[in-house]
């Protein structure tokens, strides 16, 4: 990541001061102040040493510590991401289970069509459609802003729908495979209610694939959060990252992308560790 940002043609100082017509000596002074005149490995060593102490530098535009800016915006992004994840999981699992249990019927077909629509719809378009319908026409929900369930509903729904579609497909496929197994036939033969057979016996074995997809989808949600925060005018790390990229604010881009990637890696670590809970045959260490 540091290397990718280093090769950017023209750093933030150049683009910032080009607008004001500053003298070359002012540009050189500012570059010295931010350490941008140092060789690549010196800059990287400095960045790494500071990062390990929790110091991600200062924003070249806002002149505030990057960690402060991220800490201010992080709660809004966490709220949005987990809200969208909840939408994805609840709707995705529900659709997938219904499609698997009613496999081959019109319910299955409709469910998969809904899933196809969900995965094909760009987030920024579905967000704008939701704003048009629920804010401008019906006036039920606010079109923009951060804070409160009302302001979270549409962004979480827009962001979560495509994840719901993918989770529905994987749940259906995974559950169909499990429902064909001997022990499920045995459970039915014992006279257990279909609900118990599906939810208690079959789902726990189908969940491995679903949990894997949830982990992967978290990454898609983090990326999609950038777009959703712009569409709905929400505060958040995604909005911060998009602005930092547009203004070539290196430290801010580094900090926000690092924060998002760290969250993605941590979530996938939790996913890996959860396999053992769903399937006792899988144990680590």
């Amino acid at each position, binding site marked *: *990541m540091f290397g990718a940002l280093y090769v*950017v*043609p023209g750093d933030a100082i150049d683009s910032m001061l080009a607008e004001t017509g500053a003298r070359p000596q002012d540009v050189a002074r500012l570059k010295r102040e931010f350490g941008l005149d140092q060789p690549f490995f010196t800059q990287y060593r400095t960045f790494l040493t500071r990062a390990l102490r929790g110091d991600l530098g200062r924003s070249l535009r806002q002149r505030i510590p990057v960690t402060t800016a991220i800490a201010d915006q992080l709660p809004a992004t966490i709220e949005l991401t987990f809200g969208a994840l909840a939408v994805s999981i609840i709707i995705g699992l529900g659709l997938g289970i219904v499609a698997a249990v009613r496999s081959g019927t019109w319910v299955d077909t409709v469910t998969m069509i809904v899933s196809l629509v969900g995965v*094909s719809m*760009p987030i920024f378009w579905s967000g704008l459609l939701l704003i*048009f319908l629920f804010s401008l026409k019906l006036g039920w929900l606010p079109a923009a802003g951060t804070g409160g369930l009302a302001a979270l509903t549409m962004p979480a729904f827009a962001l979560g729908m495509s994840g719901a579609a993918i989770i529905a497909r994987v749940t259906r496929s995974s559950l169909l495979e499990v429902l064909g197994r001997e022990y499920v036939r045995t459970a039915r033969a014992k006279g257990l209610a279909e609900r118990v057979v599906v939810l208690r016996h079959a789902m726990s074995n189908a969940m491995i694939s679903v949990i894997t997809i949830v982990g992967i989808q978290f990454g898609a949600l983090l*990326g999609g959060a950038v*777009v959703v925060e712009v569409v709905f005018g929400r505060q958040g790390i995604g909005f911060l990252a998009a602005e930092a990229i547009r203004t*070539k604010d290196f430290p801010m881009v580094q900090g926000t992308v690092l924060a998002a990637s760290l969250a993605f890696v941590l979530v996938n670590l939790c996913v890996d560790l959860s396999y053992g809970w769903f399937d006792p045959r899988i144990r680590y260490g």
Partner: protein
Amino acid sequence: MLWRRALRHRGLVLGGALLLVIVLAAVLAPQIAPSDPLVVDTQAMMAPPGSRHLLGTDALGRDLFSRVLFGGRISLLLGVISVTISLVLGLLFGIAAGYFGGRVDEVIMRFIDVLLAFPGLLLALLAVFALGASLTNAMIAVGISGIPLFARVTRGEVLTAKENLYVEAARALGAPERVILWGHLLPNIIAPNIVIATLRIGTSIIFGASLSFLGLGAQAPTPEWGLMLSQGRGFLAVAWWMSFAPGLAIFLTVMASNLLGDGVRDVFDPRMST
């Protein structure tokens, strides 16, 4: 026999037909479009859909139907080029890692793991930041974000394929490494990659449109769908058609490519079916 199975697959036929219509509309845009997509008409600013302008006009009076048609060329080109970049580079990395193993495999796969640590769209954003905001760089950026997927699949396929007898026979007959790699291994490992490439086109189109929506891809006055949506966002209350038309175009194109991709996967590589 595979082709007969393909023609009986409803999703593949529907997706293929829809995508063909979209591709033809894009290719024949100069003949079909009623006006130049860049021509400004101050007398017809934000005109609603009607007989004179099928999908209405935008804030500068430009015909939206013409801009959607020409935008199709850009989005389809972006999808195909970025997937090609992902496929070619992914194949190169995957084949090198899988065939040579050892240190080469370690270095390449750690690099791929680093790329995988970044969520897809964020990786594309990072690449655009490094390269600069433009349509060409957006294509490259979206292509880079797809490399890990192809590299991992290819490596897995090569690890299996290189143990086959035909590879051992080729080596015994003195065939050079490049002949073994490109003449024997590649044809046997390409099929899953083609399936994934077809499935990946829709994602690439959405990523590319997202970059343009954020102002990091195509720049004004290019008639690119994501950019058109971004321009229409501020006029949603008074001219909803400015956002509806390009969004519908993206949706139909991505849905067609997803249907086609699912069909290709079901017919040519049923192991990957969901």
